[in-house]
């Protein structure tokens, strides 16, 4: 794996996670969580070298179309069906510093709300030109962008009539294994956000609103694609000035 010149090594442990801000493990309104949530207390562990370190993903792993879901699965000369959008923003940490070299992976349903997956049972059709996955790596300012189609909402077996609002799944890899995060992006103005049992696993309204991407008129490309801006925040990390140095440092 290649090193990034813009990346200064940091060795501080991460800020402790605010577990009242994140969804708890057990959220009965989201039925699958009932049998999959640990019932015993987590063991607290302030970061050792095993938690504060993490792999580097070099830009060399990326293919030319990895950040273009409109074309990365499409036949040559064709493109995915749907509302063309750009999703862009920055990955920051809790200290508001940009996270350079962060690996972002995203996946989503097609414009009709259908995933390309053998266990998917929704009657909406597959789009032969849409795979549904993409990835990119943030630049020195923590900035990223990708092109896709706006995913459709879809029904799912939970309550009798539960639907997911339109959303894009994000996996984020920052600089340390303890920063690892998976979340979902929602779209400004979607009334279905507030009806969704998965959204409702998050107890704090402000935490939900932080996952709603704003329509970004300024960056909308005329006659081509609207833009949505979605910033992602990873855990901050302590300054090591006054911390005990590990042996050998």
């Amino acid at each position: 794996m290649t090193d990034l010149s813009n990346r200064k090594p940091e060795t501080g442990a991460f800020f402790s996670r605010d577990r009242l801000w994140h969804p708890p493990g057990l959220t009965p309104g989201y039925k699958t969580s009932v049998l999959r949530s640990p019932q015993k207390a987590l063991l607290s562990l302030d970061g050792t070298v095993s938690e504060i370190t993490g792999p580097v993903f070099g830009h060399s792993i990326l293919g030319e179309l990895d950040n273009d879901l409109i074309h990365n699965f499409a036949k040559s000369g064709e493109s995915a069906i749907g509302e063309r959008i750009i999703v862009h923003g920055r990955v920051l940490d809790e200290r508001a510093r940009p996270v350079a070299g962060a690996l972002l992976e995203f996946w989503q349903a097609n414009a009709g709300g259908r995933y390309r997956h053998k266990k998917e049972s929704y009657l909406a059709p597959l789009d032969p030109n849409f795979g549904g996955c993409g990835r990119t790596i943030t630049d020195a300012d923590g900035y990223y962008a990708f092109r896709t189609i706006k995913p459709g909402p879809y029904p799912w077996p939970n309550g009798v009539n539960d639907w997911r609002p339109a959303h894009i799944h994000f996996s984020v890899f920052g600089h340390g294994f303890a920063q690892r995060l998976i979340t979902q992006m929602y779209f400004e103005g979607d009334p279905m956000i507030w009806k969704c049992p998965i959204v409702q696993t998050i107890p704090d309204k402000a935490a939900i609103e932080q996952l709603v991407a704003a329509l970004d008129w300024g960056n909308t490309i005329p006659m081509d694609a609207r833009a949505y801006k979605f910033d992602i925040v990873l855990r901050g990390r302590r300054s090591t000035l006054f911390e005990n140095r590990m042996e050998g440092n």
Partner: protein
Amino acid sequence: MVQPLGYLKESASQTAGPYVHIGLTPNFSGIDGVYESDLGAIMVTDKTLGRRITITGRVLDGTGTPLKDALLEIWQADAAGLYNSPSELRGSADPNFSGWGRSATDGVTGEYRFETIKPGRVPFKDGRLMAPHISVWIVARGINLGLNTRLYFGDEEAANAEDPVLARIEHRVRVPTLVAMADGDTYRFDIHLQGDKETVFFDI
């Protein structure tokens, strides 16, 4: 009034959902041609230093049923006990080993599998050596925030006995939930999300 700290809040987690394999292991999920290969699928090459091992197991829910839609990632030191990371200041790790792997649980058996090497020992914060271990992260439908645990090795009894993290587990009966049992070069590590054998998960 005080000066504002100006901190941001970490983005709240949301479940990886039933289709996490589409995003993180698309070739495994049958979406061919987007990426050449799935990231983290191959950890070891001919040049990697260290003893080859296999780690395999299942993730089990509260009824003992294996999860078929889960995804695991592991992060470990190289054979000499160094992490391949810019935050590793003790030396340069094996350039032929990234230390990071990713595996989907199988859609039929629920088994995950990593072909890797046995890690060396790395120091705890106070300089004492921890026993060889691998950091494990688990996401799936129904898991709202990724779960962190550690895998220790059943054939490292002496090192495990002095490991400062294992020593912090108050209920000693739970320590074996973090210890993978050896069968030759294969280590079996089942992860129990609930129940009497619930794995010790960490708030890291």
